[in-house]
């Protein structure tokens, strides 16, 4: 989780990712951020996020994103 938080902090250092669960709904993340997050996750976690998982629900909070990584890692 810490590794993921670090990636996210780099993008928007002022956001409290531990509590924020409206990253998409409140337009905190944009398309550039999504591209960056996906490529960093692939580099750091060796997990490829398939197109059908690139949906708002999976990116609204750090927790949701972390659960996605864990789920994909197990498969």
């Amino acid at each position: 989780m810490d590794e993921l938080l670090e990636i996210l902090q780099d993008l928007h250092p002022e956001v409290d990712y531990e509590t924020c669960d409206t990253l998409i709904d409140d337009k905190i993340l944009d398309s550039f951020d999504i591209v960056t997050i996906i490529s960093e996750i692939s580099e750091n976690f060796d997990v490829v996020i398939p197109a059908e998982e690139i949906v708002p629900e999976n990116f609204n909070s750090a927790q949701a994103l972390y659960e996605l990584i864990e789920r994909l890692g197990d498969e």
Partner: protein
Amino acid sequence: MQQTNVLEYLEKTVLRLPDKVAFANESEGLTFGEVFHDSRAIGTYLYKNGYYHEPVVVFMKKHPKTIAAFFGCVYGGDYYVPIDEEMPKFRIELIFDNLQPKVMICDESTAELAKEFAAKGDVKIVLYDEVTKTEIDEAVIADIRDKQLDTDPIYIVFTSGSTGIPKGVVACHRSVIDYIENLSEVLEFNEDTRFANQAPLYFDACLKELYPTLKFGATTYIVPKSLFMFPMKLVEFLNEHKINTVCWVVSALTMISSFKVFDKMIPEYLHTIAFGSEVFPIKQFHLWKNALPNAKFTNLYGPTETTGMCCYYKVNRDFALDEVMPIGRPFHNTEILLLNEQNQLAKDGEVGEICVRGTSLTLGYYHAFEKTNEVFVQNPLNDRYPELIYRTGDLGKRNERGELVFVSRKDYQIKHMGHRIELGEIEVNVNMLENISTSCCIYDKEKEKIILFYVGEMEVKDLVVLLKGKLPRYMIPNKVEKLEKMPLTANGKLDRVYLKKYYEEKTKEN
């Protein structure tokens, strides 16, 4: 008679197709008849209230009505200046300082915020839904038209300026008509064209959809911005609305291909794909070509100062992964001069500055004669009569096939996510902050990241928050690092080369 007004496109089409949808978003649309009505009502209102030959700020959310408001300004004999809620307040204030506008068209969602800007300069705020109730005065509309010249301005769009102040590029009927005619011929638009608009309405990039839609009686769908984060939903949108033509920034296209959406679904109606302003990575291009082998792909190039785009390359061969796609050749009625440092034509293969000659030149920068004269200059190859060319600051050359190829920039301007950005503008805004002593920006082309280094008594987090209030989102650095001391070259300039190396080594370690 020869066309001298962009509105003639609309006036011809509305006779044929009054009930066809011209501009739509995911839930609402305006027909050509409605656009025709609303824009003439706005034009009547503006003129009758004394707003004639004036900049009219259009501050509305991205919506079909915003587009009709643009045409309304032109009907009134005025020129539209699109402002968007995405722009930070500070930037909007700078733009207002430059424009000194007297009137602003808003919608319900922007009216409150607009009051803040209006208060300072005594700007009248009118609501779209109110002013379109104005009774159309045909005599007034005809009178405005009779007095109008094709060299009169129709819009101003603002682009990044290295001194920290955005520059307003003013375009007239004649250059827009020239552009639309030639672009339409190259991309073969027609009445059946269904555009998906990606570009913000506050840039000239949206001309590609707006005016051909009027000219041919085509339809433009505005794609909700959020879909550009979620590629499968984006392709679903294209299919749902049977989109066959897109003119997008490269990053919007590669968003779809790089996440392997094509393994799951393809945009089945798409046959015309134009892209530009950025290099299309060949690997991504191959994915598109394989998914849509029968589609036509066209690379476009051009600065805002020469009205939209001025060069095109129809992709007609394969490219190796390390090759760069050419920008091809100029549109009909435009010439590109490659000028070397001696202001002479570059020889075959020699690099020169890309300079543009022709009707496509815009009028220059608003309220900025000095800035205008720096780049809209007398053609150095012509000592016989006055003739302006526009110096783009881009370096290019001709390849062995005679095609134009973009090489690099002369200065610190970059292209990032399809946006043209002066790194200097970011630095000026950082340096203006209290407790910051100096700053320097570099660009990591490969990872497409803006990196900011600064020296001062401030945490990274606080700096980013302050910057977000000053600069548009696409100009916010993707990585910020505080330094103890700024590296300088022997003659005391910021040492960008050192910083680049420092950054590269640092990212390698991780």
